[in-house]
């Protein structure tokens, strides 16, 4: 577990940050800032490193910092690594971002008042994950202010040792999977576990906190380089829905199963032609994506592997799936993925590009 965690915590994205031309007041313009950003961190936390590069050239006024990639204002509460995995189909190294100190797009982005906003958001996500895993927020609520601060600082500094010390007070638990583990001890447990949905001693609810970012690609492209840019957040479906793991004897709940469970509207059984109009299934149009995407499926009483319909041509195709910058095999047990690749706030962030075949005439 430790090795994978180290891998995750050491992951970083090289950034090349350019000051927006409208805010450059000196000739020649300042060179871009080169910053190595921790994957598990957040862009506003980099400000102390970035500001010195540009402070002498900024116009007078109050700073309201925001970042942008190819015209898309970046949501500051999404971890840096996730933004990179999602927005750069073909990884760009260094990643060229633009920074603004003025003109905050408050009609699009929620306000960010520096580190405090990011910390508040992090702690709230931690509470949400706690609730999903344990059915209550007690673990987080019972942490003292100083312990919470210590935990937060370990994230700011990407300091795994400090994080492990702090989070021992949190009891986040892990997801048990009798299929994946091989020790004789767990095979005794597995006798009891078979057939039960809620198996783990530590995760009372058997649910995994997951945040899924889905880009529904309507066109086909060969290389990632040819992927069209994401010019609006409306193109991305954000699914913030706990994943329920359904255990079956002898079967492993894989990453692929998890995606299908989280996106039942895409991977559910195809309707018969006689059932009439099929608007929800035609995901090519932009207007649909706004309303049809992410809701909370809740229980999802799916106890069998989902059948994906008549022909293979009808199935949505997962073109790309990235977690922490890697593309895990879809057959990987979800328990391994969730335990090893989660972020410090205990959410598993998954970026997925899906191509849905255009709706056939019924």
């Amino acid at each position, binding site marked *: 577990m430790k090795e994978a965690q180290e891998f995750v915590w050491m992951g970083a994205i090289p950034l090349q940050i350019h000051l927006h031309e409208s805010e450059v007041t000196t000739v020649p313009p300042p060179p871009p800032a080169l910053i190595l950003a921790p994957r598990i961190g957040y862009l506003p936390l980099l400000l102390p490193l970035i500001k010195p590069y540009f402070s002498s050239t900024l116009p007078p006024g109050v700073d309201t910092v925001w970042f942008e990639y190819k015209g898309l204002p970046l949501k500051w509460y999404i971890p840096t690594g996730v933004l990179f995995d999602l927005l750069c189909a073909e990884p760009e190294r260094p990643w060229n971002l633009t920074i603004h100190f003025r003109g905050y797009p408050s009609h699009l982005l929620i306000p960010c008042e520096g580190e405090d906003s990011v910390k508040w958001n992090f702690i709230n996500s931690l509470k949400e994950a706690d609730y999903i895993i344990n059915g209550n927020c007690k673990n987080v609520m019972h942490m003292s202010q100083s312990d919470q601060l210590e935990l937060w600082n370990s994230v700011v500094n990407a300091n795994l040792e400090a994080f492990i010390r702090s989070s021992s007070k949190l009891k986040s638990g892990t997801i048990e999977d009798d299929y994946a583990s091989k020790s004789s001890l767990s095979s005794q447990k597995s006798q009891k576990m078979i057939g039960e949905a809620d198996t783990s001693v530590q995760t009372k609810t058997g649910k995994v906190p997951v945040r899924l970012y889905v880009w529904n690609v309507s066109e086909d492209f060969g290389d990632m380089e040819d992927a069209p840019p994401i010019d609006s957040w409306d193109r991305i479906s954000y699914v913030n*829905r706990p994943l329920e793991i359904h255990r079956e004897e002898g079967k492993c709940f894989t990453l692929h199963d998890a995606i299908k469970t989280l996106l039942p509207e895409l991977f559910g059984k195809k309707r018969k032609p006689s059932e009439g109009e099929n608007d929800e299934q035609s995901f090519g149009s932009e207007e649909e994506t706004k*309303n049809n995407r992410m809701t909370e499926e809740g229980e999802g009483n*799916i*106890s069998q592997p989902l059948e994906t319909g008549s022909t293979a041509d009808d199935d949505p195709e997962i073109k790309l799936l990235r977690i922490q910058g890697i593309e895990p095999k879809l057959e990987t047990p979800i328990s391994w993925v969730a335990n090893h690749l989660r972020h410090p706030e205990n959410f598993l962030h998954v970026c997925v590009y899906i191509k849905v075949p255009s709706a056939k005439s019924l």
Partner: protein
Amino acid sequence: MNESAWDGTLSASEFSASAQAFAEKWKLNNPAYPPWTWVKSLEVPIFATNQVSLVEEGYLSLENVCIVKSNDDEVASCVEGEASLYDKEDEESTDSATLTSSGNDNVQPYYFDFHIIYSASFRVPVLYFRAYCSDGRSLGLNEIESVLPANSAKVLLESKWTFITQEEHPYLNRPWCKLHPCGSSDWMKLLFQAVEKVDRPAMELYLVSWFSVVGPVIGLGIPIQMLKEP
């Protein structure tokens, strides 16, 4: 689910059913207000053995509710029906049930949009809202707090159950205000045990009860008739 240990939460399908029931009761008992509309977001196939049933998922929406704050600090909701902000011509859909003291010209009307959205993480409804002036300008969080009824501002300050933050709307990719869900299940549980004296409510009534607590915080009361069984 263990009947004797209801945790104050509800499932997605219970929310959908409860929302329909809430909207119907509201329409019946609150004719002065525009109705809540159900905005469908998904039809999710649910598989159970060989049967497929469709659960409709979505959220409740009430928009363009006018809240007027006079200088006397009295707040009332006057209702402008579903007429758009700039549509002063459409008299028929305007239903001004104004409750402010009359003759006060320094009254500034604000318009609120309310969405009741299900949180899959916390398994409770969450209220999202936003406010704007008659010229369409969005109100910031501080401004909204000053526009709300005086006693609800007090509730916000003193209560640990209810506080408002600015967060992104789950579907619309825009900043909205959110009334926090953490704790909802606790007070819902208390509400039913203390008031209804049942361990577990009829789930269709969940939203009505929930709204009886949440509504007044943002200046929307509900008539007593809504709380009674039909």
